[in-house]
């Protein structure tokens, strides 16, 4: 279980003193899949970076299975089984996809494993294994490789930051399946930052983050019902408008 205890974060270089994450408390349980959603700039990625240890909270604590990891570095947390798929993954000149995935797997991965990882994110191993993770990869390709680098690891807490961004529609279904499988098969706590309904549907619980605060934590069914109601509303409105348009057309002629 991963626990955030009243975590706040104010960047040192910021002139405005308002924290960008404020008093966030969360209990994220094993074998559960959480989706964090909310408006742009709300503080979702900041929360993820606090979990990975890329940034340190200004106040509050982070605990993994009861162990205080607040002062641990990124690599120490990584070795305890925390992983983070970047929203904007960096590119590396000279490092191949195979190099990166082998590192990710802790050098345990053979060629076979690298190939199956690539397949699981919908990339043909033959075409990508030896490509460099540099500026020649497209945005979507880079995101898939980032995803594979997290799937390669045996994690206790896996955080994915908008994994669907830049991924085409067809592969998106595949992606949702990948998360579903991970959820079924592993004991990990899975956290996905997403704006997509199809991903929200996978959640055991949905966390709404806005204005740097954890606004609410609700079950998927409640949230999905709200979304559907809203959609049904909009849909019937559109239909009504559409009908009136037609009626108007016939009246005029």
């Amino acid at each position, binding site marked *: 279980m991963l626990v955030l205890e009243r975590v706040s974060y104010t960047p040192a270089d910021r002139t405005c003193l308002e924290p960008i994450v404020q008093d966030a408390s969360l209990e994220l349980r094993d074998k559960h899949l959480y989706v964090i959603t909310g408006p742009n700039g709300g503080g979702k990625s900041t929360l993820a970076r606090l979990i*990975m240890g*890329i940034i340190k909270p200004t106040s509050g604590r982070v605990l993994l299975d009861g162990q205080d990891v607040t002062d641990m*570095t*990124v*690599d120490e*947390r*990584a*070795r305890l089984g925390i*992983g*983070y798929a*970047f929203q*904007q*993954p*960096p590119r*590396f*000149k*000279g*490092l191949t996809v195979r*190099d990166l995935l082998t*590192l*990710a797997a*802790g050098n345990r991965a053979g060629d076979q494993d690298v190939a199956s990882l690539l397949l699981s994110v919908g990339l043909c191993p033959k075409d990508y294994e030896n490509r460099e993770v540099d500026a020649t990869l497209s945005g979507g390709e880079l995101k898939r490789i980032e995803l594979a*680098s997290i799937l390669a*690891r045996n994690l206790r807490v896996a955080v994915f930051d908008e994994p669907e961004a830049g991924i085409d529609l067809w592969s998106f279904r595949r992606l949702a399946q990948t998360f579903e499988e991970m959820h079924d098969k592993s004991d990990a706590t899975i956290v996905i930052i997403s704006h997509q309904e199809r991903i929200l549907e996978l959640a055991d619980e949905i966390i709404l983050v806005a204005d740097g605060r954890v606004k609410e934590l609700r079950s998927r069914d409640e949230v999905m019902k709200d979304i559907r109601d809203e959609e049904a509303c909009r849909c019937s409105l559109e239909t009504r408008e559409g009908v009136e348009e037609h009626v108007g057309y016939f009246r005029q002629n």
Partner: protein
Amino acid sequence: MSAILDRIDQRLLRETAGLHSIPRGAYNIRKNGVGIARESTANIEIRSKADQSGIEVIVKPGTKNESVHIPVILSAEGFSDVVTNKFDIGEGSDVLVVAGCGVHNSGSADSRHDGIHEFLIRRGARMRYVEKHYGEGQGKGKRILNPVTVINVEEGGVAELELVQIRGVDSTNRETRISLSRDARLIVTERLLTNGEQDAVSRISVDLVGDDSTARVISRSVARDRSSQVFYFDLRGRSRCRGHVQCDSIIMDEAQVRSIPEISAHHCEAQLVHEAAIGRIAGEQLLKLMSLGLTREQAESTILDGFLK
């Protein structure tokens, strides 16, 4: 090979020429100023120049998939060696030339090798040239390498150069000059790492003389500690040609890097591009690798190794 080469020599050869045993094909091994082993083949002749100032390598026209190894080793402390070698790469041939210099200096006097290589790549021939420089030894004496490489590529010829200096050379001043005729093609990849108090200067100048000639220079370097690097790139378009220089340096610690590019067009259809960048290792790159469990040091060396690969 062990009869003429001791263990230090063998290691130097491994580092510079990738040699684990006597190479196949033609070779000439020079140690402390004298040739100690030489072999010509049916298609590649190696002979001493009349004035004894170096060797001549003559590749017969049409020779395919053959190689020439010409490593130089300096293991006597305080030795200064000057050599001028000439290469005639025959029409339509396709060969690999592996040069390089390994210096072992455990004394207090400087060891130095100034090697001049002149190539004529004849019509339609292709040459891959790999030059590796390597130094070792604990002595206070410096290990100094100043190579000059001059290449003329005739019509339709191809020159691919790989210039690598990754370890142990205290001071280097290298000069590479290439002239390209019609339809000739050049690819240069340069890899350089300096650390400690080392300094390196590299000048690469390319004349695109003939129409439809192309040149691509990719230089990557890493400067650590208090070392310094200076790069000069000079690309001159004298015809309807295309040229591209891309140089990238990672700077660390208190090192210094200067990159001085020049591109000049003397023809209205010359297309020349220069890209240069100097910067630290990107923080996000380190964080990404650390988030996979690598320590900061491991992450750093992974990034540098990849960059210089």
